[in-house]
């Protein structure tokens, strides 16, 4: 009987998200900035840097920043300085020896947070150079131990398909790549943002995406303040903005205040004889 119960339990709809590395890496801070490369031009896909930022903001706010069970908060940051040049040429990850030995190829510069640029080199999107179907790519992240320090997202500046996408389609593509940048892999489910293809319409995250980001960046137990270890909620010590304060304790406080308020209201109405009295059986 136990065996059948377990089989039944395991037969419900499954989570099917994956990670893009085999050690569950995530950013080592709760607030991660997403910024464009300072000298990027997206002429091939007809976007100005301002228009690119205008796509990034909803890609953050309408998707990843809406997950209530995740502590990760993405913010649009200022463009990087012009020393980081990832807008042209073949870029290689440090572990890709074949790429590094290619003439004209350069190592991906180490970046902090998430940096987005447009780049029209086909080999960055497909080793054979047949990059027409690939709209964007996230170059393997820079890790420090099990932590992500930075990620680079390249938008295929040579892609007629990306250029032809609607505004919401472009937002979804950028948001998908940000999903890779924060540590997620693909999902088998077409309802998920992390599905490998664009779909007819993308409005928000799917359950797989929510489960994945919750796994990587789940909210911590109230009172867990790392070394401090006092009751204080999950206040982001490394964040500088007031709105980084996680409102868990506020909510809990409000919940119990409401309970007390109701009890007081009852006493008040009872005093006014507005609360119906019930007959009690004599004991």
């Amino acid at each position, binding site marked *: 009987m136990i065996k059948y119960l377990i089989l039944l339990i395991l037969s419900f709809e499954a989570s099917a998200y994956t990670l893009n590395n085999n050690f569950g890496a995530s950013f080592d801070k709760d607030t991660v900035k997403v910024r464009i490369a300072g000298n990027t031009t997206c002429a091939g896909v007809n976007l100005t840097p301002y228009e690119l930022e205008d796509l990034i903001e909803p890609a953050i706010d309408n998707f990843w*920043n809406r997950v209530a069970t995740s502590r990760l908060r993405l913010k649009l940051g200022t463009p990087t300085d012009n020393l980081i040049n990832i807008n042209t040429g073949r870029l290689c990850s440090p572990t890709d020896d074949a790429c590094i030995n290619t003439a004209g190829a350069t190592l991906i510069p180490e970046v902090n947070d998430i940096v987005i640029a447009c780049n029209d080199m086909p080999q960055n999107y497909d080793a054979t150079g047949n990059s027409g179907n690939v709209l964007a*790519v996230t170059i393997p992240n820079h890790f420090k131990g099990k932590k992500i320090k930075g990620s680079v997202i390249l938008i295929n500046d040579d892609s007629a398909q990306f250029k032809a996408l609607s505004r919401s389609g472009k937002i979804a593509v950028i948001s998908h790549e940000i999903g890779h940048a924060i540590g997620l892999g693909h999902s088998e489910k077409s309802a998920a943002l992390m599905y490998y293809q664009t779909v007819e319409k993308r409005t928000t995250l799917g359950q797989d995406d929510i489960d994945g980001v919750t*796994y990587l960046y789940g909210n911590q137990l109230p009172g867990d303040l790392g070394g401090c270890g006092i009751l204080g909620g999950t206040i982001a010590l490394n964040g500088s903005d007031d709105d980084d304060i996680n409102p868990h304790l506020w909510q809990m406080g409000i919940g119990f205040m409401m*309970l007390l308020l109701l*009890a007081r209201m009852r006493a008040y109405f009872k005093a006014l004889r507005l609360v119906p009295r019930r007959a009690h059986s004599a004991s």
Partner: protein
Amino acid sequence: MLNSLILIALLAFFCAPAMSAVSKSSSLPITLNLGSHTEFFGAVQNDSSGGLRKWDFAPTVGIGTRLNISSPEFTFLPEFNWVLPRGASSSKIIKNLFMFRADLGYNPVDWFRLRIGTSLMLANQYGQGGSTNMNNGNSTSKFYYPDENRSSWNNTFDFGVEVLPLFFEEPQNWSLRLQTYTYSIFREDRRQISYSVFWTYTWNNK
């Protein structure tokens, strides 16, 4: 769907005698909740054409009690609910949601109860590891399944309405309830509402 219904029936079958035995040895009423939980109402895409999920069948079981607070109209209602694990036999990830809850109940009339309270939600995911090859651009790439047990703790602000039908018996031993849970109530960008629908049976009801 059929499996879920069978599972609920089996759980009820096994739990009922146990609940009855516990309540007989105690002066407190014991409640058993059976229902379904929908996570993040209207905020999860559930198809490729942009449809949003309004209802989900996620079998939920729970146990609780009822404590009177100075008068019959007000009750304190602690409970523990468990949204049963979700994971297919082929899945490498099993997800559990545990709710540690407490409500203040107010009965303006005998057949109706308002509930206001709070929950500590534990969303636990257990990954069994491994990898899979999936489409990626023009080719395929290897992606990895989680291989750890990780949890997200969340506090919610809860509101519920409960109907206690009087037609069948007195005191009313069963009830129907709609329970909502609001996450991040003070942060508009992250505010989400989940809800459960419960059928509740009470032993040792007084």
